[in-house]
C-alpha cells in the first residue's frame, strides 16, 4: 500500500477565506476603523493640556472631561455604513470631541469653514447661515463676545447648540471653530455653564 497525496480543496478554502477577510478589513478601515481608532485615543483631560482643533486653534478641556479626536463623516450612503475621514489616523488635526464626566454632554469642535460645518449644522437642526436668516431679533441667532475676547454666534435648541467661534485675533477670518454641543437625552439647559467654560478655553496661536 502507498501514501496518497493531500486533497486540493484546502488552498481554495484558504484563498476564499483570505479574500473574504481582506474585504472585511478594507471595508472596516474605510468605515468603522477611524471611529474605533478615535475611541482608542480617548483620554481624560488633566485640565491643563491643550488639544489641537486645526488652524492653530486649541482648546483646554476641563479636568476630568474625556477627549478624543473628532472623526467626521465624509460620505453617507444608506443603507451602507458611512465613509469616515481617516486622516486623523495619520496625524491630521481634525478636531476634538469633549465629553462631560457624566457622559451626557458632548462637544464637537473643529477648525474649518461654513462648508465643513454643514454636517454639524444639520445635526443640530440649526437654520442656515446667519446671513440667510431674518434679522437677529427673531431670537434664533445670538452673538456675544466671550471673556476670552472670542466672538461667538450660536443657535440653541432644547438638547443641542450649534455655534461658530472666532478666537480673539481671528475675528475677521472666514475660517473659525465650529462647535456642536448636544446632550444624550436630558435638556442642555443645565449644561450651559459647563459649555460656557469649554468655549472660554478656546484660543488661537499666531
Amino acid at each position, binding site marked *: 500500500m502507498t501514501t*496518497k497525496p*493531500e*486533497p486540493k*480543496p*484546502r488552498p481554495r*478554502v*484558504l484563498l476564499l*477565506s483570505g479574500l473574504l*477577510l481582506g474585504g*472585511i478589513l478594507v471595508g*472596516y478601515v474605510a468605515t*468603522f476603523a477611524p*471611529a*474605533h*481608532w478615535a*475611541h*482608542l485615543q*480617548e483620554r*481624560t483631560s488633566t485640565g491643563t493640556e491643550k488639544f489641537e482643533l486645526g488652524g492653530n486653534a486649541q482648546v483646554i478641556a476641563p479636568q*476630568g472631561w*474625556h477627549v478624543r479626536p473628532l472623526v467626521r463623516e465624509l460620505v453617507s450612503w444608506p443603507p451602507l455604513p458611512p465613509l469616515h475621514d481617516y486622516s486623523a489616523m495619520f496625524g491630521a488635526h481634525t478636531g476634538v470631541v469633549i*465629553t*462631560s*464626566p*457624566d*457622559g*451626557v*454632554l458632548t462637544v464637537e469642535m473643529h477648525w474649518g469653514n461654513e462648508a465643513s460645518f454643514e454636517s454639524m449644522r444639520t445635526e443640530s437642526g440649526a437654520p442656515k447661515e446667519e446671513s440667510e436668516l431674518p434679522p*437677529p*431679533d*427673531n*431670537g434664533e*441667532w*445670538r*452673538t*456675544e*463676545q*466671550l*471673556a476670552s475676547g472670542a466672538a*461667538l454666534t*450660536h443657535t*440653541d435648541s432644547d438638547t443641542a*447648540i450649534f*455655534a461658530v467661534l472666532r478666537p480673539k485675533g481671528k475675528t475677521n477670518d472666514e475660517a473659525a471653530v465650529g462647535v456642536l454641543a448636544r446632550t444624550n437625552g436630558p435638556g442642555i439647559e*443645565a*449644561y*450651559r*455653564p*459647563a*459649555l*460656557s*467654560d469649554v*468655549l*472660554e478655553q478656546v484660543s488661537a496661536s499666531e
Partner: protein
Amino acid sequence: MLGQTMSNPRYRVRHEHSQRILRARDRHVACAVLLAIGAGTLACCATPAAHSKWQPPPWSSNGAGVVTIERAKGAADSSPEPETAADEEALQLADVVGREVMPGRIRNDGTRVQARYMEIPGATAFNARVRAILDDAIASSNATYTPEIFDASAGLSDRGCVAGVLSWPAAQVLSDTRTGPLEGTGTSIVCEIRTAFDSVIGVSFRTITGAPDEVDRDLTVTMFVDIETNEVIAGDELWTADAAARFWMRIAETARREANGLSSAPLSPPNAEQLKRAKRALDSVVYSAGNGATLTIPPGFSASELEALGLEPAVDAITATIDAAALAEWESDAAKSLFERRSEPFSGLPEWRADTPVDCKFVACVAVTYDDGPSIHTQQLLDTLRTDHAPASFYMLGSAANQRPDLVSEAAASGFEIGSHTMTHTDLTSLKPQAARAEVLDAARVLGDITGSPVTTYRPPYGAVNNAVLSAVNQPAILWTIDTLDWKDPGVDELVRRSADAAKAGDIILFHDTHADSVNAAGAVMRRLRDRGLTPVTVSTLFGGTVPTGTVFGR
C-alpha cells in the same frame, strides 16, 4: 491514480475523514477570525466609564441668593386684576394693624388730585413724610390748592389705603373713581400696608400721574416707621451705597442667562439712565412674608450685551423677586437692624383719640358740638363717636357733671374736648359780670377737677353773650354757625340734613346730647360729613390748637 485511490474503500474512508477534519479546522479558523474582529470592535467601541456622581456646575453668580425676573403686563392693559394672594395678604395686614390708623382721603378737582393715604397717631416723622408726598403731587399740578367738598354721593367717607392697589395697572388706578383724579386725568396717590411687626409698620405709597391711555409717572415709595421711636426709614436709607448698581448687574446677568447667553465676560456697569431705573426699583421694594422682596424696574431696562442677544430695551416694567440672601447683600445696616425683629408679632397702635392733630388748612374741617350734658344719652353718644373715630366737643353743665363724673372722665380720656356750659344754664347777660364769671368758671373748675386738665373755653347758654360777660370771663366764647334746633325733635333724617348736608369747611354745628334723636343721628351725621369730604374735628383742632379770643362762630 486518483481514480484507483478513490476506488479503494479504505482510502475513501480516510479521505472522507481527512476532509471532515479540514472542514472543521477551517470553521475553527474562520470562527477565530470573526471572534477576533468582534472582540476588537467591542474593545474599540467601548467608552470610558461615565462618572455618574458628577454634576454640571451652575453659573457662577455675581452675588448671593436667588433673583428671578418676570416681564409685567403693559400699561395699555387696563383690565382689573383679579383678587390675588397679594390682596389677601394686604387685607390680613390691614386687620393686623387695626383701625387705629388715621385714614385720609383728598379729592381735589381744582388740582386734579385724589389721594388715599394714612397717618399714624403720634408718628410725627412718618406723617410729615406722607404730607410731603401729598404736597409734591399738589405742587406739580401748578394750580392753587383749596380744600374742596362735594355732595354726599361722592362717597368720600371710604378713606385710607386700598388693599391690593399696588398691583393694579396704573390706568385702572387713574380711571377708578375710588382712586383716580377728575375724569381720570391728573395724579392719584394710593397706599397699601406692606408689613407690620414688633413696633414697625411698613407702608407703600404709589403716585401715578397721567391719563389712562398715557401714564407719565408711576412711582412707589415704601416707608417703615418704628412707632416707639418715631424713626422712619425709606428710600435710599434702606440700601447700601452700591445697591442700585449691584442690583442692576444682577438683573442684567439673569436676563442674559434667560436669553441663552453663553459668555462669561463681565457685563458693562449701568450708565446713568439705567442706574436711575435701578434706584427707582429699589424705591418700589415690597417685602414678602418669606423675608425676600419684590422690586419693580420701570420700562426701559437695557444693556448692550443683552441687545446683542436679541433683547431690545424692555417696553414693560420688570418684576424682580429676590430672596433673603440676595436682599441681605444690599440692605443698609439701618434696614437690617429694623428687620431683625421681623419675626416678632405686631405690638399694636395706641388707641384712637379725638384730639389727634389735623391740618385744617389742608382738609375741610367741621366741629360738631354737644351741649347740656352729660346726660342719660351721653354714654351712647361716646360709644358711637369712638366706634366711628369721630371727634367732637362737649359743653357740659357743672351741675350735670357733678351727677355723672364718670362720663366726664370717660370723654376726657378719649380726647374729646370739654368746655364749660355754666353751672345752671343761666343767661349770662342777665347776671352781673361777677356772677356770670362765677357761673362759667365754677363749672370749669368742676370739670377740671374731674378730668385733671384745665377747661379754657365756654359756650354761653342760649348763645347770649355781651362785652361785659366777655370781659368778666376772659375766655373764648364758642358759639356756632349751624343750629340744628334739635331741641324741637325734628327726627334723625332732618337732623342729618340740617347739619351734614348744610355744613361747609370751618363750620361749628350745635347739637344737644340731652335729646335721643341727636344721639341716634350722630353716626349718620359723621358719615355724611365725611362722604362730602369734610373731616370732623374738635373746636381747638379747627383753630390749629389756638382758639381765638372773644366770640368764636367758626373758622
